[in-house]
Each structure stands twice: as structure tokens, then as C-alpha cells.
């Protein structure tokens, strides 16, 4: 065994010789940023070995390091094997940081009809003249207090066993919680005295990257607390595919418990904020993508990712939360959103519920951008959907200075077309550390408007400006000089970064076009474009249109719904009737497999241009760019 000490925290861990530094760091509980899942592809897990013997093929990964980093002996944690006892410095930039997460749902007026309700009843003790059984007495009391008809309430054995002692010990004053589950009404909990004000429900967005939980007071119908944190499964792989592969290697139970842990962590911190006891949470509603909900329920997801890509379950599920380890009331119920296919999961059904596109005659286009992207086109009668890999570029992967929406990420950029000096805004207004997806989209749109790049994204290195330079590997544009940053080096966007971004935006646009063709509609037929996903809220709609990520439409017809998954989960939690339509929505959506569409590659290639090879699809953008070019020409 070898001892590895991580600096600056001095955390120690013993591992076998030959393990990677990444293994050791994960076991020591250090949250290392591994976008590629530890395959040596993203170059984000830079560490410095101060003392000790390691093996690392630095020549192979030169592209990830600056001169300065090389001089300090940088290596990649995932590709460095431990030979002797080590001291390893993990720089702050290598650690996953607190993330800015959307917690604002859409303001929707929803009828308040939760599925769980608590009734306080005061019962007459039995007498010789009124000898009816305890259960009858209790259920009758609940019915008289406005609850469901006594005979229709099912009582599980474990609650039944508690009834006689509880009733007598409480002097016949108890609070009973009734849940409406698919089988009917169910008495899920019985407590002494009046606790009827203490009943809460949680709506959870279980994302592959982040988990967001809203805690609702089910008496007042108000949000009691909100919390979010990373999905702890990240330690088993950054993307879904890596995690399914992890599950295949006997890792399902670990992934299951990590999913539960992630939800529990969010529930705990929301409960703490609200000052309530988790025992008073009686229902949890979860919206997540298909793989996530399979994993949460401990259902083997292996068949979802291999041809012919079949999920085990599509319908909405109601189960006992305790069975999968959710830390709430022991009889808390769990409602899981239905899915459509491998890639269209409950999170998208929740988006559809949140934006209301399934209720209207007008045609809407919904685009959810996260680790992957999903697109839904349709109205109250029909819907088409598809999904694809947006590529990690929009989340900061495969981009030299790309980063997630963490503090210090440049999220807004404008560039003066003449001086080429950028103005940027960062998250939390601190010195920049990198650029996040929305900042990258702004940069791309501004660079094309300023004629720094051509329509294929190639930088015109003939421009005489210090910000435009040849770069070590690719031509690049300097967004922030080293002295302005928090990381001590120039933050640049390279031609290669731009290429990756264009590939991402092209696949999203081509997916939209594929669905529009399938439905036989044009961009003029689309009334509203909805953007969902954490990314959507910070997105500059105009710039997203300029780069041709979405079909061109009036900017005011584009709406950000933010985290639609959690909004949808909130709606389903506070109005149980809304759940009834979910299976119908899921059943109505036709899923288009992009890989099987012969025209997709053609649409993709034509979208790998700014904004598009067919400029007539983007008349406003075309006019704008022409005027930019003319202005540059005359200036």
C-alpha cells in the first residue's frame, strides 16, 4: 500500500501501488473535475506531484498544459499511476466548485390539490354500548373531518399494528395521513396529537449533473425551502454512458445509492433551511432522464444504451420512497415521471408540463439543453421528439477555457467590432476563471459580427490586433488578459474550441430541422420556442439565433423556462390531477432516432456554418451580418 497526501488540505489515503491519483483522490473524498470520466481526454484533472514516484506519459498529453504548468511538473490525475508514497497538490481549479443552479420555477397558477393530506381527529373512546373496532372508529373520524370515505381507505399492516397503542396513549387524539396512490386511498402514517400542520412534499429534478429539490408546505401551498447539489454519481463517470458502463460492472447498487444520497442531501439541506423535520415529508415527486430514474429505482439501465435502445419502464411509477432509501417519512410515497424513450425521459415530460405546450393548438418547439439536448415539437394533438449529444462544449468540456456555470465563469460577452475589446460579466462578479456555455455562445456571435471569424468559424489571423494571434496549437482570440483573470493566464477561445461549439450548435439545429420536416412545418408555423435546462436561463436568445443554434424567429417568441424539469415536478406535486395527463403525453410523443434519419447528416453539415449554409432560413441574421460586414468594410 502507498500513502497519498493531498495538499493543501493534507487529506491522506492509502491505496494500492499502480492506482491512479484520480482513484486515490476520489477515495479521499476530493471532488476532482473529470469531464471525460477519467479517460485522459478532457485535461481538466491537472495536479502537481510534489514528492514521490509516479508514472505519467507527459509527452502524450502536452496539449493540455501551459509552459508554466509543465515547468511545475503538472500531470493528469487520471493518467498518473502511483508508485511510491506521494504528496500531491490539487489546485483549486481542478476541484468541482459550488454551482449556480436555477431555482426559479415558472410562475404558474396551479390548483392546490396535493396527493397527501393529514387529518387531525378527536375520537370518542369505545364503550360497551359503542364497541366498534379501533380502525373503524379512526377511519370514520377521518371521513367526518373531510377525508375520503372510510371503506375506501386501505391501511397497511405496519400502520394497523400501531393503531391500538397510539389511540389510547394519545387519549384518542391523533393525526392520520392519507395518500392517494394508484390503488386508491391509503393511510400511510398515524401520529399522536395534532401534527396536521406538519406535512411537506418535495419536488426533485434528478439531473445527471445536478439535483434540485423544492420543499413545499402542503398545508399552505408555499415553498418552504429549496436546495441543490451535484449528483454524486459524477464520481462514477461524467456522462450517462460512462455511468451505465459503470453499472454494467456490478456498479448499479452503488449508482442507486449515490442517486438516493444526492436526493437526500438536497432534501436535508432544504429541510434545514426551512427548519423542518425530514420525517414530515410525505411525498417526493422526481423528474429525471430515463437512465437516471432507472438507476434511482435500481432498475438495470444496460439495455437502454445498446441497440435497439429499450427502456425497462416508460409509465409513471409510484413506489414507497423508503424502499430506495429516501430519507423522509418511513411511509413517504415516491412518484416518478414517465419516460418516452432512451433519451426522452421524465425531465422532458416535466418540461412539457411546465411550458404547457401540450395544452395548446399552436405549435411549439421545446429545446432542453444540458449534458445532452432534447427537442420536442408539437401541440395538443401530436408531438415529435428527438435527442442527441450536444457535445460537452456548451457545458465547458472540449473547450480550452470552458467551465461549468461556477463562480468566475464568464457568462456574458460583448465585443467592440472595431477595437475588438471585449466586455464580459462573470458569475458572482469575480475575476474570470474560464468561460461558460452562454459566454461561449456570446463570444461566437460577437466574433462573427466583428468579422474576426468567417462563417465556418476560422479565425482571420491576418487581422492586426494583439487579441488575434496564431496560438500554440490553433489560432486564438484573447477574451481576457492574464492580469485581468483569477488564474494568471490569458483566457482565450481557440479555433478548435469554435469548431467544437459549431458542431454542438449544428447538431441542435439539425435536430430541430429533422423534427420540423417530420411534422411538415416550417419555422413560420412555430409560435413559441421554449428553452429549458439550467443553461437556458442565462442564454442570450439573440446570440443563440445569430450562431444558428435554433431556427430563426422573432426574439420575443423565444422563452426561457429555466429548469423546466423541477417546475414540472413542482406542478405534479402540488396538483395530483396534473399527473394523470403525464402518461398520455408520454404516449403521444413519437420518438425520432436521429441516427436512423437519412437526412440528418445532411442537415447537420448544412448547419455547420454561421448561421447556416441556407442563408434564406436566417433572413434577419443574414441582414445583420451583412450590415456588420459593410460597417467593418467602411470603417
Amino acid at each position, binding site marked *: 500500500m502507498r500513502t497519498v497526501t493531498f495538499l493543501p488540505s493534507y487529506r491522506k489515503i492509502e491505496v494500492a501501488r499502480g492506482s491512479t491519483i484520480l482513484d486515490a483522490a476520489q477515495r479521499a473524498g476530493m471532488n476532482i473535475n473529470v469531464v471525460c470520466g477519467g479517460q485522459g481526454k478532457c485535461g481538466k484533472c491537472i495536479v502537481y506531484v510534489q514528492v514521490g514516484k509516479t508514472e505519467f506519459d507527459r509527452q502524450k498529453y502536452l496539449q493540455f498544459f501551459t509552459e508554466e504548468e509543465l515547468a511545475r511538473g503538472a500531470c493528469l490525475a487520471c493518467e498518473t499511476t502511483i508508485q511510491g508514497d506521494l504528496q500531491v497538490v490539487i489546485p483549486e481549479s481542478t476541484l468541482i466548485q459550488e454551482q449556480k443552479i436555477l431555482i426559479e420555477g415558472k410562475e404558474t397558477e396551479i390548483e392546490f390539490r396535493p396527493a397527501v393530506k393529514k387529518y387531525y381527529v378527536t375520537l370518542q373512546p369505545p364503550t360497551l354500548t359503542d364497541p366498534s373496532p379501533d380502525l373503524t372508529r379512526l377511519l370514520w373520524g377521518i371521513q367526518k373531518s373531510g377525508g375520503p370515505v372510510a371503506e375506501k381507505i386501505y391501511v397497511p399492516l405496519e400502520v394497523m399494528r400501531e393503531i391500538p397503542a397510539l389511540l389510547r396513549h394519545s387519549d384518542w387524539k391523533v393525526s392520520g395521513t392519507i395518500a392517494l396512490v394508484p390503488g386508491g386511498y391509503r393511510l400511510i402514517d398515524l401520529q399522536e396529537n395534532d401534527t396536521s400542520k406538519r406535512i411537506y412534499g418535495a419536488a426533485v429534478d434528478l439531473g445527471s449533473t445536478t439535483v434540485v429539490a423544492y420543499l413545499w408546505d402542503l398545508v399552505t401551498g408555499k415553498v418552504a425551502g429549496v436546495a441543490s447539489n451535484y449528483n454524486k454519481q459524477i464520481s462514477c463517470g461524467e456522462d450517462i454512458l460512462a455511468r451505465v458502463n459503470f453499472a454494467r460492472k456490478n456498479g448499479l447498487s452503488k449508482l442507486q445509492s449515490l442517486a438516493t444520497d444526492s436526493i437526500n442531501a438536497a432534501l436535508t439541506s432544504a429541510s434545514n433551511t426551512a427548519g423542518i423535520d425530514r420525517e414530515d415529508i410525505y411525498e417526493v415527486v422526481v423528474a429525471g432522464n430515463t437512465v437516471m430514474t432507472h438507476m434511482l429505482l435500481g432498475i438495470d439501465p444496460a439495455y437502454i444504451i445498446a441497440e435497439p435502445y429499450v427502456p425497462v419502464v416508460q409509465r409513471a411509477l409510484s413506489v414507497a420512497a423508503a424502499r430506495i432509501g429516501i430519507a423522509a417519512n418511513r411511509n413517504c410515497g415516491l412518484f416518478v415521471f414517465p419516460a418516452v424513450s432512451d433519451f426522452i425521459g421524465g425531465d422532458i415530460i416535466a418540461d412539457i408540463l411546465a411550458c404547457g405546450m401540450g395544452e395548446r393548438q399552436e405549435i411549439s418547439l421545446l429545446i432542453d439543453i444540458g449534458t445532452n439536448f432534447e427537442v420536442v415539437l408539437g401541440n395538443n394533438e401530436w408531438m415529435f421528439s428527438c435527442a442527441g449529444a450536444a457535445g460537452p462544449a456548451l457545458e465547458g468540456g472540449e473547450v480550452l477555457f470552458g467551465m461549468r456555470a461556477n463562480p468566475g465563469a464568464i457568462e456574458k460577452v460583448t465585443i467592440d467590432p472595431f477595437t475588438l475589446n471585449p466586455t464580459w460579466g462573470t458569475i458572482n462578479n469575480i475575476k474570470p476563471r474560464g468561460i461558460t456555455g452562454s459566454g461561449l455562445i456570446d463570444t461566437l456571435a460577437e466574433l462573427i459580427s466583428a468579422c474576426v471569424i*468567417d462563417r465556418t468559424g476560422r479565425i482571420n489571423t491576418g487581422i492586426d490586433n494583439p487579441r488575434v494571434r496564431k496560438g500554440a496549437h490553433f489560432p486564438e482570440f484573447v477574451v481576457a488578459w492574464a492580469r485581468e483573470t483569477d488564474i494568471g493566464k490569458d483566457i482565450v477561445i481557440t479555433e478548435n474550441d469554435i469548431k467544437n461549439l459549431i458542431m454542438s450548435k449544428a447538431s441542435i439545429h439539425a435536430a430541430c430541422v429533422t423534427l420540423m420536416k417530420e411534422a411538415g412545418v416550417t419555422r413560420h408555423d412555430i409560435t413559441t420556442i421554449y428553452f429549458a435546462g439550467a443553461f437556458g436561463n442565462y442564454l442570450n436568445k439573440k446570440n443563440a439565433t445569430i450562431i444558428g443554434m435554433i431556427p430563426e424567429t422573432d426574439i420575443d417568441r423565444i422563452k426561457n423556462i429555466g429548469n423546466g424539469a423541477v417546475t414540472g415536478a413542482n406542478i405534479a406535486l402540488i396538483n395530483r390531477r396534473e399527473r394523470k395527463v403525464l402518461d398520455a403525453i408520454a404516449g403521444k410523443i413519437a420518438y425520432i432516432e436521429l441516427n436512423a434519419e437519412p437526412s440528418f447528416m445532411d442537415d447537420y453539415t448544412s448547419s455547420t456554418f454561421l448561421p447556416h449554409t441556407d442563408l434564406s432560413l436566417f433572413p434577419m441574421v443574414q441582414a445583420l451580418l451583412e450590415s456588420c460586414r459593410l460597417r467593418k468594410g467602411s470603417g
Partner: protein
Amino acid sequence: MGFDLQFGWTGTVSEVVLGRTRAEGGTRSVSYRIGGGTTLPFLDTDRPSPSPLIAFECCDNPRIWSTIVRDYCGDLVNDPAEWAKTAETVYGADMVRLNLTSTKERNFSDVAALKKTVESVLSATTLPLIIEGSNEPKIDSEVFLACGEAGQGERLLLGTAEASRYRSIAAAALAYDHSVIAQSPIDINLAKQLNILLREIGVARDHIIIDPYTGALGYGFEYSFSAMERIRFSALKGDADLAMPMCCAPADSLTIKEVRDAPADARDEMAVQWEVYTSIAAAVAGAEIICVRHPRSVGVLKEAFAGLKSHSHSRTAEVR
């Protein structure tokens, strides 16, 4: 009964001028105005389509040139000027395409020699020229400017612009009023994108020739054919960014297995046949310029194109 050959097309392939005669300010004995088509080639229509131009390819350093061509041409291959003259006077080519293969030598830097070569070829032949420059980013700017300058007033066709490097060739074309070959890898969208890029840095549509990239027959030409068909359909339907004449160079056909493995006494014939049939297929797909490397291919193709035309004429007569 004939077929209804009215397709309702409204677009026209743009016209591109190749070469300049003395009257036009150059020194060529002939200049061509290609393009202008409003339908597919070799159809039974009132307006017969012109035969594609046949350009003969020569080079200034035969080290990497096909041995079949070297064996056939003998010492000529060491003298690009004489070789170009022979292409005009003996082989019967319509144009000469000069490949500056010397730029592919390691550490090439003698740009002045290139200029001389271009000048000597221009004085040896009176045909319009295609000049194929360097594809080395470090020197291509200098190479294209030197060629462009040497051919000033002659309306050369400069090759080859690609999406990853088009600025220097476009700069030379703009500075000295030459045209440009825009090559993309067998894809209609990429072809259109490159044309837009060229247009946006100032190259006019009537100074661009599309090279869709020509695979050898049996070795991917079906993809080329399909890309060319789509490009031409788009042009005829009115897409101005794809309405340029097309140029095909089936040079790959000289190096395919069937040619390499042919018995020594049949190899030459096999090479000519493969080059010719690939060229005919390209012509049928709509190519306005065909570039060949085997001298015998020139004559065979001339005959074939004449036959295609007379055939279409006679059919027209029958229908009437």
C-alpha cells in the same frame, strides 16, 4: 414518344471566362466562356449543350507524377513549356493545367523559379491555363501571388481553394483578376459553404469554379456523381451560391488497382480507358471542365463527346 424534358427550372449556371485573347487584353489565341446551362447536359433539347472543355495536366516536377504518363511522354515531362505546347499542338487539349509539383519538395522556397515556369508555359502555349499552386500554408500566399502576377491579364484559373485555406488564393485572384477552383470533399453543403466564404471576401460568383472532388470510377465516383447532380439541381432551381460551372479531375483513376495490376502490355490502355470512362461519367453529371493526365485520353474524350452530342441531336430529329 419522347420524355418531357421541361422541368420547370428557372436557374442558370453562371458564366465564367477562362483565358484572355489579345483583343481582350491577354495573349491567348482563344478564351472560353463556360457555364450558362439551364438544364442537364446531353439532353434532347432545342439548345444543344456544349462539350466539356478538356484540360491536359502537366507538372514542373515529374517525380510524383504517374509512371504511366511519364513512360508515354518521355523527356517532355522534364520541360513543362514544351510539354504544354505538345498538349496544344499534338494532343489536342482545350486547356493546359500546370501543376506546380516542385512546391511539394521539402523546404521548397524558390518562388522566383515558379514565376519563370509559369511565364515560359504561358509563352509556349496559346491555350488558357489552370495553375495548381501549393497546398503548404507557409508558402502558398507567396506562390499564388507569384503565379497571379506572372499571369496578369490572362484570366488564369487558380487552384485549389479549400474551406481550411482559401484566403491566399483568393487574394491572388482578386489582385490580378483570375478565377478560382473551389474544392470540397464530395458534399453539396460544404461546396456551398466554400462558395459563400469566397464571395464574402470578394471573389465574384463568375470567378468561381466548383471542384466537387472526383473519385475514380468504382472507387467512390458514385458519391461524386450524386454530389454533382445535387449541386447542379440546386443551381437550376435557383441557388446562386451553387450555380457555378464544375471542374473534374479523375487523376485517381491512374493509380487504382486495376491499372497497377494490369499486364505490362495492357496497362497503358487500361489507364486510358479508366480515365476516359470516369471523365465521361463526370461530363454526364454536368462537369464543364475535365482535366486528364494521359495524353491519349484527350483524343478519345473529344470523340466521345462529339458522339454524345450527335446522338442527342439525331434523337431530337427522330422525335420530331
